[in-house]
């Protein structure tokens, strides 16, 4: 699905934006699911849910309340949502990744980052590689 120019751009610059990687139908399902989680978050005043290691699956930022929900992170949505699993395992994203670093690729993890309107979260500059887990022997 990627042109030679797109692949060259990625290897030269380290990133590439590709439009229509997820279909309209799947996009709508992803949005609906996330909206449901935002609604759920209104009932909580602290991070909630549970990941495999016991830490909270849903993270909220300071200032979150039922009237102004600020759900900023859902960890491993692939585990709890068929839509998010499908986007990871069987979408244009999966195909594009296989073309860039494949043909053999495996999942490390998934997560949702959200900045709700006028919420405070910024992401300070960093590289993924030296974070826990990501350092790969490759």
């Amino acid at each position, binding site marked *: 699905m990627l042109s030679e120019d797109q692949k060259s751009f*990625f290897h*030269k*610059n*380290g*990133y*590439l*934006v590709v*439009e229509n*990687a*997820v279909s*309209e139908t799947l996009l709508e399902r*992803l949005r609906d699911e996330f909206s449901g989680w935002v609604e759920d978050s209104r009932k909580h005043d602290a*991070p909630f849910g549970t*990941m*495999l290691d016991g*830490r909270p699956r*849903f*993270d909220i*930022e300071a200032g979150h309340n039922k009237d102004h929900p600020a759900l*900023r*992170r859902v*960890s*491993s949505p*692939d*585990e709890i949502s068929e839509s998010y699993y499908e986007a*990871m395992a069987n979408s*244009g994203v*999966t195909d594009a*990744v296989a073309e860039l670093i494949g043909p*053999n*690729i*495996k*999942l*490390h*993890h*998934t*997560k*949702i*980052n*959200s*900045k*709700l*309107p*006028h919420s*405070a979260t*910024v*992401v*300070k*500059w*960093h*590289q*993924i590689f*030296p*974070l*826990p*887990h990501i*350092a*790969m*022997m*490759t």
Partner: protein
Amino acid sequence: MENGPLEVWSGTHKSDIHSLWHDGVFTGAVDDAVTNAALDNRSYCTGKAGSVCLMHTRLLHGSAKNNSDHPRTLYIMVFSATDAVALTPSPVPSKHQGIVVRGHDDGRVRSVHFDIERPELPKGASFFTQQTHNEENHG
């Protein structure tokens, strides 16, 4: 640009791995000098809904606050080649970690040399707590 889109410093996936430790604290962020250089060299990654930004794990990136009236939500999926092996436990564990989504696993490990500080696993709900905790403790 007011919704705080992803910002990247093009080409940095081919340069140094920058420390995320400062004064003995794992901050999850590079130091001020690297940040300022990144801000001077940044490109914005924008696209309509349904677009994907494919990003190398060594690329320097960050993003600002969302000052718009609409949410800015993104789905992050991290993949590797099947012959890459993680050196530390995942801070975002999934029962699907390691499943092969394209091609096959030929049971091999491919290694290249690099030298890197060991990171600190987050104790809170996410990596954001590491970035924010540092701010609270160090102004």
